[in-house]
């Protein structure tokens, strides 16, 4: 038993931290927030150069073939830097769905390009009903002329406006078990009838879109995996993406704790640094407890999904439930302990606070995942 990181993983962590401190400064993040793209070709090329876009894809598809735990280390550092741009949607959503469900030809066509930073694919899953279960999938895919026609609306789709293609989750059969009849389609962004609108979001570092599909015709080979069998691979992708998101949230929460601790050491009130007062000190200690627990349960979940352990689904839900609450509370406490300066646009705290809020409601919030845990422990 070894519940720690390897030397290589620690090296990846320190390399990533140095890289983001230099390349993903507060100034860069704020500039990207204000642009529709949320990233620059130069920054994206640097991520590719580091090998991070293809970190988890097998070498035959142009990736580095590393494991999920390695990716979790990288996500923590990206969260620490509140990194903007389509990394999460490209690697964890689009890329891993193709890897999980795609044919060899589809993988060969897309994954090397994703790894090299030459293409981006996102996942169009959720809809205005904001459900995380199979019943939420109502976009219809009807067979027509040897292919399919897709109609309906997808919402909260990350980075669709700058993607080259979208994996669209659609229903090819209705009635009976809602999990049956869910299919995945790889749809080029340029397909006629596909309309993408960028939405104004609280967290400006993460771009979300509405995607309208107005009788979008796709050929039969746009199917990713088997017709009607898309829910299972999607579930595996989402389980991993959920844990990766937790890791990103941990990184952000740790950074908020670090900023707050440093501030409490230098900010003087009533003749003493505020960190000497127990009202502040104890709150900081509470933050540390939550950050450490959040990491522990995330690392455990990362191991469980990487190993496809029998308890993987439960572990992922435990992590998302705990980390959603913890990162919200820690980032709010960070603002509180900074006082007025923490409430300004100028200070970086709001970037972390808003990222935590967005992540809290991505892939289900704490309440949703606690109920899943309740089911999975046979309550």
């Amino acid at each position, binding site marked *: 038993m070894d519940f720690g990181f390897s030397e290589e993983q620690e090296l990846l962590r320190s390399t990533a931290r140095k890289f983001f401190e230099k390349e993903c400064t507060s100034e860069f993040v704020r500039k990207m927030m204000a642009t529709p793209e949320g990233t620059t070709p130069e920054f994206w090329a640097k991520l590719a150069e580091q090998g991070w876009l293809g970190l988890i894809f097998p070498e035959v598809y142009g990736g580095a073939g590393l494991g999920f735990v390695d990716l979790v280390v990288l996500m923590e550092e990206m969260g620490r830097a509140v990194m903007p741009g389509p990394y999460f949607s490209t690697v964890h959503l689009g890329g891993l769905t193709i890897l999980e469900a795609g044919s060899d030809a589809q993988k060969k066509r897309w994954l090397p390009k994703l790894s090299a930073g030459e293409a981006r694919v996102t996942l169009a899953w959720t809809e205005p009903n904001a459900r995380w279960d199979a019943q939420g999938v109502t976009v219809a895919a009807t067979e027509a002329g040897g292919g399919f026609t897709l109609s309906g609306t997808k919402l909260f789709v990350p980075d669709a406006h700058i993607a080259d293609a979208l994996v669209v989750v659609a229903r090819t059969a209705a009635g009976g078990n809602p999990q049956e009849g869910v299919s995945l389609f790889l749809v080029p962004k340029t397909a006629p009838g596909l309309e993408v609108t960028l939405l104004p979001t609280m967290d400006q570092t993460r771009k979300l879109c509405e995607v309208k599909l107005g009788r979008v015709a796709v050929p039969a080979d746009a199917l990713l995996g088997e017709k009607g069998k898309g829910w299972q691979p999607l579930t595996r992708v989402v389980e991993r993406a959920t844990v990766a998101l937790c890791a990103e949230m941990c990184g952000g929460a740790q950074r908020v704790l670090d900023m707050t601790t440093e501030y409490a050491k230098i900010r003087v009130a009533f003749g003493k640094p505020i960190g000497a*007062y127990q009202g502040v000190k104890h709150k900081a*200690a509470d933050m540390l407890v939550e950050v450490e627990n959040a990491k*522990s349960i995330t690392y455990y979940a990362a191991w469980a999904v990487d190993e496809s352990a029998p308890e993987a689904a439960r572990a992922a839900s435990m992590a998302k439930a705990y980390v959603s609450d913890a990162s919200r509370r820690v980032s709010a406490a960070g603002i509180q302990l900074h006082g007025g300066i923490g409430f300004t646009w100028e200070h970086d705290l709001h970037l972390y606070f808003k990222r935590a809020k967005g992540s809290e409601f991505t892939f289900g919030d704490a309440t949703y995942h606690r109920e899943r845990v309740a089911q999975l422990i046979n*309550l």
Partner: protein
Amino acid sequence: MDLTLTPEQQSFRDEVRAWLEANMPRDFAARVMASSDIPRPEAYDLLREWQKQLHRAGFIGLTWPKEYGGRGLTFVEEMILHAEMALAKAPPVLNILGVGMAGPTIIAYGTEEQKRRYPPKILSCEEIWCQGYSEPNAGSDLAALQTRAVRDGESYVINGQKVWTSLAHVADWMMLLARTDPDAPKHKGITYFLLDMHLPGVTVKPLRQITGDEEFNEVFFDNVRVHESHVLGGVNNGWAVGMTTLMYERLALGFGLQVRLRIALDGLIEMARRVEKGGARITKDPVMRQRIAQLWIDTECLKYTGARAITRLLKGEMPGPEASTGKMGWVDTHQRLQELATEIQGPYSQLMKGTQWAVEGGLWQYTFLRSRANSIEGGTTEIQKNIIGERVLGLPKG
């Protein structure tokens, strides 16, 4: 990162599991309590016998060196043992202060003679230990302790008083902190003694606590003569030695308690399955499902935070921030668990042992009351937060 066990560890787990299957007192819960980990007076005899059994089977003091009665194994085996005992709902260890604190401290600081003399009898439960730290005017501010030890020839003469001393009424030995140099700064004039509780001049007066039990005590010292060979770790070095004890308490003993939360949690879920509220089972109530699931999650968090700390120890590294959060996390989770246990019972949580109407014999009421001490004993939550704030986060002292 790999949470799987090696073949050797697996066979150790199987050995523990098989032994527990064959030897565990099945009626323990019914006879004593459903969920508490704190030995109750009515269970002392049973628990003494249980520890002896564990000792004969070699399942106690796993990480202690062989020459001092242990098995020389690692914390991984210790973790496996705790986890298996929790799953089997095995009774706790009576000499928990000896096994969790006195033994490791003696092994760390003792002379060869002391190391051969005390630890084996701690493990076998032949000698029970208590901890003489707190005084009426020295609790959270422990270094303010006033019990005096004055040198007289080869001995020290001890006068003063300790309080809240768990198990003192059955203990044979005490880890005693006493002031040997009243002129030195308060942390520097303290010495750690191994005190024979049967010496003339030692008086133990039980205190009744909110549970109604007499589980902790006042201990008075009236000219108690202790030979200098009973000093541990050097004269006036008691603060460092005493802090080592506390580190073991929070790490090893704390980790066992965290794993054992699972026993109480399983018990709570079993009760929730049986109890109805408003005509429906508690486990079908959406709010109660949320709260039970949260406790499950918090219990798992504690377990893995402990596992991270232990991994660092095994790699020869200093425990990181994760090690210091365990006690606080355990306290918070356990107290919420006990609160929820009363809520599940509703109005029945008012009934104590002695009526057929009491749920599960009223045992949860006892463990609920007992849990209030958790955030006070072994360092209050407020002191823990100061320690985390100052030593882990580096915040200035108040």
